[in-house]
C-alpha cells in the first residue's frame, strides 16, 4: 500500500518535472519529509536516487541528438562533484531544524523566481533543423573560472538539498560561457547524474538512503518522466507551471509550520 502510494508520488513528480523542466527532487524531498514522516536528511538522500534516474534517462535522449558537450560537462563536473561530495559530508553535522529551514527558504525562493519570470521555467530555444539533423552553431566555451565557481555552488546546493541544480548551471553556461542554450540545457542535464551520485554515495554510506522508499519512487519517476517528455509538446505548460508554484508555496508554508511546531504539524 505504502509502495503503491510512493510509485504514484514519483510518477506525479516525474510528470510535473518533465512538463515544466524542473527536477523532481525539489518536490520529493519535502513531501517525503512532511507526509511520510521521513527525517529530512534521509528524505534528501532518498530523493537523490530519483534525481539520478531522471538524469540518466533524459540525458541518454539528449546524447542521441548530439546536443550534449561531453568535454564541457566533464570539466564542470570536477567542480559540481567536489561541491556535492563535500556538502553531503557536511550535512552529516547539520541538525534537522537547519536543514528544514534552509529547504523552506529554498522552496519559497524557487516559487518567487518562477513567478517573477512570468511563469517560465523552461529555457527553450527552437533548434535549427537541416535535413532532420539538429544544427548547432559553432561556439567556443569561455570564462572557465566563472563556470567552475558557479558549478561548485550548484554542486553544493545539490548535496545540501537533494536537487539537480539545473537552474544555476544552465544560465551560467548560456549567459557567461558562450554556450548555445540547447547545448547548455542538455549538458546541465548530463552533469546532474554525476553531481547527484557524488552526494548520493556519501548519503548511502551514512545510511541516509532508504532503499524501500527509493525503489517505488524511482519506478514512478521513471514512468512519469517518460510520459511527461511525450506530453510536453502538446500540453499548455503555463497552467502546469502555476500548479507547480502552488505546490511549492504550499510545501514552503507547511515546512515552516512543521519547523516551528517541532514536527507535530
Amino acid at each position: 500500500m505504502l509502495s503503491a502510494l510512493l510509485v504514484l508520488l514519483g510518477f506525479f513528480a516525474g510528470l510535473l518535472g518533465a512538463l515544466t523542466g524542473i527536477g523532481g527532487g525539489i518536490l520529493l524531498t519535502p513531501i517525503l519529509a512532511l507526509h511520510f514522516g521521513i527525517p529530512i536528511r534521509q528524505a534528501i538522500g532518498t530523493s537523490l536516487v530519483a534525481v539520478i534516474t531522471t538524469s540518466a534517462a533524459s540525458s541518454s535522449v539528449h546524447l542521441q541528438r548530439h546536443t550534449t558537450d561531453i568535454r564541457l560537462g566533464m570539466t564542470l563536473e570536477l567542480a559540481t562533484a567536489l561541491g556535492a561530495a563535500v556538502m553531503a559530508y557536511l550535512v552529516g553535522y547539520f541538525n534537522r531544524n537547519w536543514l528544514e529551514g534552509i529547504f523552506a527558504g529554498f522552496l519559497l525562493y524557487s516559487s518567487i523566481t518562477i513567478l517573477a519570470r512570468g511563469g517560465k521555467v523552461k529555457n527553450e530555444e527552437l533548434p535549427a533543423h537541416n535535413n532532420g539533423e539538429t544544427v548547432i552553431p559553432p561556439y567556443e566555451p569561455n570564462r572557465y573560472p566563472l563556470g567552475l565557481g558557479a558549478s561548485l555552488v550548484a554542486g553544493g546546493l545539490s548535496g545540501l538539498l537533494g536537487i539537480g541544480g539545473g537552474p544555476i548551471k544552465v544560465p551560467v553556461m548560456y549567459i557567461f560561457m558562450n554556450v548555445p542554450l540547447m547545448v547548455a540545457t542538455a549538458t546541465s542535464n548530463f552533469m546532474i547524474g554525476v553531481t547527484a551520485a557524488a552526494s548520493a554515495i556519501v548519503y548511502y554510506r551514512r545510511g541516509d538512503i532508504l532503499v524501500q522508499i527509493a525503489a517505488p519512487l524511482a519506478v514512478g519517476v521513471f514512468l512519469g518522466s517518460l510520459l511527461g517528455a511525450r506530453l510536453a509538446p502538446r500540453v499548455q505548460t503555463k497552467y502546469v507551471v502555476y500548479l507547480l508554484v502552488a505546490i511549492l508555496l504550499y510545501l514552503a508554508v507547511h515546512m515552516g509550520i512543521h519547523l516551528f511546531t517541532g514536527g507535530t504539524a
Partner: protein
Amino acid sequence: MSQVREPAFDKAVALVLRVGAFGCFFIMLAGLLVEFFLPGRIPHAIERAGVLLMLATPVVRVLVAGILFLRERDWKYGAISFGVLTILLLGAVFGIGEH
C-alpha cells in the same frame, strides 16, 4: 560542439546511461512485485541492488568516457575524467562509519 562532433562517442555514453536507467527500473519493479507477493528479505535485497546500480551508473559513465578520451589520445580530457572519478570514489570514503 566546441570540438569536432563525435556521434560514436555520444552513442557509447548514452548506452551506459540507458542500460543503467532501464536496468534500475526493471530491477526495482521486480523488487516491488516480489515484495507484494512475498514480503521479507528477498525484495529488500533486490531493491538494494537497484539502488546500487543507480549509484554506479554515473560512475561507470565517467569511467567509460575517460577510457574513450584516452583511446583518442585526448590526454587532457582523459585526465579530467579520472579526476571526476577520483572525487566520486573519495565521496565513498568520506561517508564511512558516520551516522
